[in-house]
């Protein structure tokens, strides 16, 4: 199996198996344009993110062998649960946010779908303020406007599941 070399923004080099590297639409485009022997430069990808992505690919292969299904082609519910359990552990909200951005840049669809799902799980019980912080959103409502929305849907702001 041919190996593809990539170099991340902080100068680290990684080797990926060709079939896995091709899951990234961005890498695939680069490979089509240039020779396969060249190192592909990924200035928007950090090395820790690359580590995570390789971890993901390894996990997928493991699960494909275990369940006998091609996860890249189908979206399997069981995979989602197994994946989330692994990935959720060490990833802070901010790290998840960065990873999401990078995976979108690399165009790895299946991983993106799963990360969006993870992000949604983390977001759903957040307060408005922590949501703004997480996504880096500007607060552009006047206090009166915001108060009006809060009043219209006051029940949506209450509940034991909402994190402080």
């Amino acid at each position, binding site marked *: 199996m041919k190996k593809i070399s990539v170099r991340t923004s902080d100068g680290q080099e990684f080797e990926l198996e060709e079939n896995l590297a091709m899951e990234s639409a961005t890498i695939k485009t680069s490979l089509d344009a240039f020779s396969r022997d060249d190192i592909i430069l990924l200035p928007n990808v950090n090395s820790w993110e690359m580590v995570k992505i390789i971890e993901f690919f390894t996990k997928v292969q493991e699960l494909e062998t275990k369940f006998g299904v091609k996860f890249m082609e189908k979206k399997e519910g069981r995979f989602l649960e197994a994946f989330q359990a692994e990935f959720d552990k060490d990833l802070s909200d901010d790290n998840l946010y960065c990873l999401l951005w990078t995976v979108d840049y690399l165009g790895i669809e299946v991983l993106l779908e799963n990360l*969006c799902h993870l992000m*949604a799980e983390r977001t759903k019980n957040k307060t408005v303020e922590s949501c703004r912080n997480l*996504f880096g959103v500007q607060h552009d409502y006047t206090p009166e406007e915001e108060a009006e929305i809060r009043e219209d849907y006051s029940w949506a702001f209450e509940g034991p599941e909402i994190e402080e």
Partner: protein
Amino acid sequence: METSRSQVVELSYTLALGIPENILVEILSKLPVKSLLRFLCVSQEWHALTKSSYFIARHLVHHSSCSDQIRPCLLFLSSLAGNFEDDCKPRLGFSLLRDEEITFLGLPSLPNLTIKTAALKLVGSSNGLVFCHVIDTENWTSTTEEKHDIASRFRELLLVWNPATQQFRCLPEPKNNISLEQEEEATSVLFAFDCVHDHDISEYKLVRVFSHGSDDPTDHGKEVTTFEAQVFIRSTNSWRQVKDKLAFPSYKSCFESTATTLNGVLYWKVVQKSDECYVLSFSLHEEVFSIIQLPICIRYLNRDDYNWTTVPLYSWKDSPAIVVTDYSANGNPNIVFWVMSTNEESKSNTNESGTQMRTPTWVQQVRLKYSVLDGFGMIGRWKDQFLFTSKKTNEAAGATDDIEPEDLFLYDPRSDTKRKIVKHAVRIKFIQVENYVESLLPV
């Protein structure tokens, strides 16, 4: 994992760029409605995004496909129990089964509604919208001053409600286009509802079908009964009379509680004076009536056949199915599902009044030994499985007001397996069921 300096630098860079909209949509569309309503005040951009019909559609698609998996999300009309709050004040509403837990969804408070005498019927649910029909048996009369206020002068109230956003709307009453004499006789009223989202995800259509004596002034023997319909479309906010009518000869009675809407077509059972049975239909999209003939072996009503008059038409892969009881050679009863084939080859012709008369093929899809479901009450279907409650314990209730806890089962006729999905639902007696999905659709 600690955030190193390079990661911090990268984070502020990424935050400054902002999250790509396609990803934001992907993430937000997986959130429950309650979170999305709260996040309306995150920013004006988020507000505009989550209120857009593009987003509402994506959110609905995601949540619909989730509920396609093994755990049903169902709305129940239940009697008594569950309608009481802790202080024992009765409330109208539905029970929601989701993730194998039951919660009570109370209807928004409607002015001048006497709950004790109000009857609630679940017309249907589609794309997160729930249609209810509330009849207040006490408030028959109204004074002239109150006439302008729809909600205060109702005998019946049509309500469209989105339980997730808690928005609701009382629909205006339809006007009957028939003579006063006919109006007094007008009995059977049926409702059906469907979303007609060819262009606009939030567009829906409600139809009201009713019957009355013949329009023909020479028909004193009331040989012919006419079925008519009116439709209400969200965007026009008004009722419109439907051109097509159905003149049904020798009509004896119709069984409103058997009506079912499938794929935008309303089906209901009728019987003639000669005890010959038919299924009538009204297509919401084409706005035409049809008379559907039944296979000979089930065409004639057996006076003792309780199934015909009360059991609703079920569905089998989106086709209407009739449940009958028949007997094997050894005298054992069986439950049989006759399913109508909806392929193009089914014959149809038009009778003298211009109504389409269809003679489709009916197929016996399922044949169960009655004993399999003995002691269970069938209340509806979910996908191709059937929902049952365990009736056995209720017989023990006797004369007391106590409602025995019921279990809810799913039965799959293809594999002959039963699965308990709710154990001991306390103080809930399930009557009617609809599939439900949470959505942001406006009412």
